[in-house]
């Protein structure tokens, strides 16, 4: 264990075997709304190992954030409900775990950062207080020691003049600095898993790159598993090891980042890749996937992507594709993944 403070909280089934550090298995999440039941996540499975970076890609409403919140256990239940599935951490299902045991994991061993750091930080407390809270509450550290640790962490996420800024409030920082503070807070107790939900969406492009660089670096230093949730494929290409593409609450493709980017095996992934602006195609119209994201209250029959799919054949309208095995490390939920794959490698 790299973090001595959590040794006392070892899970009964904790073992080094072939079980990945974190595995989401056939997870279903639904929301009770006035209009009916919204099935936001429909059988998602993915896994992350220590030191590994998984990028979860997809447009808004694809269920990627909801999956992350289910892992963290911060969904509002009700209206949310998890009818099926497991989230295994070191082999133990977090979803069936007693609340207090799960509380020992949340924030300490699995941490999360959010999209908009300004609204995600409490406006009425200093950043030092908010970072230090992790040590005061979880480790019973004194105010002075916690503040000192907060300064150390702010240094570690490279906030200039950390010592003089520890007593400032969130609104006194720039967007990039605020996200660094979020990161400092999340890595405070040396978590084994860090979930970053659209960490750079609210930031300038140059700052985006810095934040991604920082995340990658912190991950290497401490060997965390990193789950990077984004809709921006450009952002993750450099840092991710593997990708999971989500659409309509399902994983439609998972692959190593190299395979996925070189030759996508699902038409949706292909569409996403083609809609990245490219310098060499300057002046040409930017490709956009036609149509609208699916309405979760009224999902299309068969393959959820079929109304927007250029590869659509008759059976796509009626038969939902399973996640076909493309290779040992690769899957695609498309009946015609071979065609898509062939097109891509040309």
């Amino acid at each position, binding site marked *: 264990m790299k973090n001595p403070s959590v040794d006392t909280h070892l899970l009964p089934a904790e073992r080094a075997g072939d079980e990945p550090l974190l595995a989401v298995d056939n997870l279903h999440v639904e929301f009770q709304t006035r209009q009916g039941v919204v099935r936001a996540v429909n059988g998602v499975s993915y896994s992350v190992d220590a030191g590994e970076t998984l990028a979860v890609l997809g447009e808004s409403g694809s269920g990627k954030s909801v999956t992350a919140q289910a892992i963290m256990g911060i969904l509002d239940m009700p209206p949310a409900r998890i009818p099926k599935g497991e989230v295994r951490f070191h082999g133990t299902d977090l979803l069936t775990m007693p609340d207090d045991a799960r509380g020992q994991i949340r924030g300490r061993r699995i941490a999360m950062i959010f999209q908009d750091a300004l609204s995600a930080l409490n406006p009425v407390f200093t950043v030092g207080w908010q970072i230090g809270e992790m040590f005061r509450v*979880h480790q019973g550290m004194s105010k002075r020691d916690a503040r000192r640790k907060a300064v150390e962490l702010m240094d570690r996420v490279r906030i200039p003049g950390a010592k003089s800024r520890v007593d400032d409030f969130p609104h006194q920082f720039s967007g990039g600095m605020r996200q660094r503070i979020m990161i400092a807070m999340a890595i405070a107790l040396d978590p084994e898993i860090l979930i970053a939900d659209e960490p750079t969406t609210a930031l300038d492009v140059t700052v985006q790159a810095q934040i991604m660089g920082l995340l990658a670096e912190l991950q290497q230093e401490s060997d965390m598993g990193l789950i990077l949730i984004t809709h921006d494929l450009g952002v993750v290409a450099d840092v991710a090891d593997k990708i999971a593409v989500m659409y309509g609450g399902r994983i439609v493709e998972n692959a190593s980042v190299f395979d996925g980017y070189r030759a996508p095996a699902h038409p949706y992934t292909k569409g996403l890749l083609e809609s990245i602006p490219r310098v060499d195609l300057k002046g040409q119209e930017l490709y956009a996937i036609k149509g609208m994201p699916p309405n979760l209250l009224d999902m299309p029959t068969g393959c959820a992507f079929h109304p927007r799919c250029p590869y659509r054949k008759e059976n796509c309208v009626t038969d939902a594709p399973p996640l076909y095995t493309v290779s040992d490390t690769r899957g695609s939920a498309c009946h015609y993944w071979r065609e898509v794959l062939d097109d891509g490698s040309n």
Partner: protein
Amino acid sequence: MGRYVIRRLLQAIPVLVGTTFLLFATVYALPGDPIAALGGDRRLDPQLVSRMREQFHLNDPLLVQYWYYIRDILSGDFGTTFRGVPVSSLFEGKFQVTFQLAITALVFEAIIGVGLGLWAALRRGRWQDQAVLAVTLLLVSIPTLVSGFVLQLVLGVKLKQNTGVDFFPVAGIQDGMRSYIVPGLVLAGLSIAYLTRLTRTSLMETLRADYIRTAVAKGMSRRRVLGRHALRNSLIPLITYLGADLGTLMGGAIITETIFNLPGIGQQLFQSVYLRENAVVVGIVTVLVLVYVLANLIVDLLYAVLDPRIRYE
């Protein structure tokens, strides 16, 4: 900060001038002759009438009268009534009574309103929440006249008769602080209802904030999330309401004071309007405006304490 306070106090001057003038003009425009009213049914000696009109500058135009009034006020003289009594002597003790009544009501309002509101918000959608909403609706719809007399009867008379408990005095102020309990509760009734609903909405809104989700993700207990992360943020709008309400409570105490026979400024105000004692009416309202302005200033300063994003230069 100091400069801000001074600026705000200076800003109060035009507010005071404006309100006193408006009031002065309104009283001036009232029909009837206050001097003639002094005699009741009998006609007064015309010589006396003209002398008094001269003495009280009643023959001068409105602006001139107003100028005399302001000049006297600035030298600390609230003037005399048409009956020859110094106005300031009428104020003696009465503002204290009203102020104490209003503060008692404010304390009830803050404790019950905020408490009930927080409780309802934490049980959103459940029967407790629905019950609180129903009770506040009921409170809003009961006029002070009704709640005042009912509580007076129930707590002051029936309780004593049936159980022998004589804890709630319901008339006069001879029992000190205790005298204000029931009147304060009655006066606070409407405000309690509003503040309960405001608190409920405020906390519910705060609980939806992203930083609350962050606190939960940090592994903080529900208790800590509510008590440390949510509470302070949801208090900010309530302070505004409470501050503004102090003025409203002081000005709206007339009925309560009458029911419970409290010798406060409300009764004096009513009497003075009735008797056309203009100097008293304007004097009382001037003081009330001052209270209002000061209460708002305190609210704005408290704001900066609660919310670091607000800084006054």
